[in-house]
């Protein structure tokens, strides 16, 4: 399961948003967490509870107001740290895919590794073919992404992140924007990825999936981790009344 090393460590994370210039929204109210190498952690909870914000803070897409985030032992909230270098090792997959529409399918994958000099053009092309093959998109390599379905786009987004050979993958509601018949194909790709031993943090509303793949489940509500535990503990025997209430609404 996990081999013990701490990959990400979060200490006292707070995040506030300002709306209309003055009103403050306290989204994260002190989160402490340790993610170990090889762990698969799913994050569940009601909308607006702070799940996505927590995930987006981990690679500093949102800058925390308070607290520290250590990635592979380095405090990435330190202003002196070059975040771009660390982001190369943290893959991210978005709800709305965010496939680069000006680049062909293959270029979506090879652009970053080549530009950031992680790979030569030839190496990147070779890896690109392998990755596209893996998610069944090799025949689309030279097409523009506008011709892809939602499910295909999300599969492409996953391998685009994998092309940087990250140490952790962050999934921000990867199936929420998909048509129902395409959810399965994307979840399958994530399951295959989990089986390779990749460390994954997955914000999701797919409870069955969370139960099946995760080692640990975090229930985030109102800006804090209200409950955490193994999938069995959380889904079969939740302790916190808010967890119980949430699960009673989503598991029907």
């Amino acid at each position, binding site marked *: 399961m996990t081999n013990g090393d701490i990959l990400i460590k979060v200490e006292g994370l707070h995040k506030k948003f300002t709306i209309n210039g003055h009103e403050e929204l306290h989204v994260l109210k002190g989160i402490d967490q340790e993610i170990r190498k090889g762990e698969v952690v799913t994050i569940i909870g009601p909308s607006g509870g702070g799940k996505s914000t927590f995930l987006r803070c981990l*690679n500093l*897409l949102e800058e925390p107001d308070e607290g520290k985030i250590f990635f592979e032992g380095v405090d990435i909230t330190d202003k002196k740290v070059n975040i*771009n*270098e660390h*982001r*190369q090792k*943290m*893959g*991210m997959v*978005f709800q*709305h895919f*965010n*496939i*680069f*529409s*000006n*680049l062909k399918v293959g270029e979506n994958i090879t*652009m*970053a590794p080549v*530009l*950031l000099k992680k790979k030569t053009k030839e190496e990147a092309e070779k890896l690109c073919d392998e990755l596209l093959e893996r998610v069944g998109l090799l025949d689309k390599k030279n097409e*523009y992404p*506008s011709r892809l379905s939602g499910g295909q786009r999300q599969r492409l*987004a996953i391998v*685009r*992140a994998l092309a*940087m050979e990250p140490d952790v993958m962050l999934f921000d509601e990867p199936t929420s924007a998909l048509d129902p018949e395409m959810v399965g194909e994307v979840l399958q790709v994530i399951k295959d990825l989990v089986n390779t031993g990749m460390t994954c943090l997955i914000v999701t509303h797919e409870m069955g999936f969370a139960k099946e793949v995760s080692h640990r489940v975090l229930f985030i509500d109102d800006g804090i981790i209200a409950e955490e535990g193994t999938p069995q503990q959380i889904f079969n025997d939740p302790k916190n009344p808010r967890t119980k209430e949430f699960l009673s609404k989503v598991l029907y």
Partner: protein
Amino acid sequence: MNFGSNIIMVLQRYGHLFLKGTLITLAFSAVAVTGGVIFGGILALMRLSEFHITIKGKKIKPLSIISTAYVEVIRGTPILLQLYVFYFFIPSALSFLNLSKFASISLALIFNSAAYVAEIFRSGIDAVDHGQMEAARCLGLSRNQALMKIVLPQAIKNILPALCNEFVAMIKETSLASTFFAGDIMTTYKTVNGALFLVIEPLIIIAVIYFALTFTLSKVVAVFERRMKTSD
């Protein structure tokens, strides 16, 4: 009075002036928009710049403020006023430059066009889905790399047609340069009107020329725009 024969007579005697006026109008517009693209591009970069200083805990972006202020002032004052400033004030204030009439009017048009072009750039870039920038940053690209590789190539599709429209608008705006007898088509009208004491005939001729120029260009832009959309 015979309109038809008068128009023919005007064209026969002053046809070369109308042609010259048309060319000068096009030259003014081309210079204004070209200069406007360069200067407007700089303004847009300043506007988007993240460079900031912190005063009393507040983030202030001086480059962005300067650019915004410039755009607001230029867009909030009449182009004729700007022409007056450049025609009378700048050449005397900077007399060592020895600015010609064409140069000072061109400068006024460039400084005017730059403000509109800056807005075209900014809105073109803003129209690109923010997720594109986020996805690029998540792969480890710097802000500039993400802008160059991902955001700008997509923004160009919004920017180019709007720039062509700015050129069309400029063709009409240059008529104001005739205030200073700059040699554009409107100046041709004034010359012919003064020589022949005819009003309607030369006006109809220049109206047809302006309309032919702008209508043709707009149609070309429309075709161009449709092409860009299909490549999506």
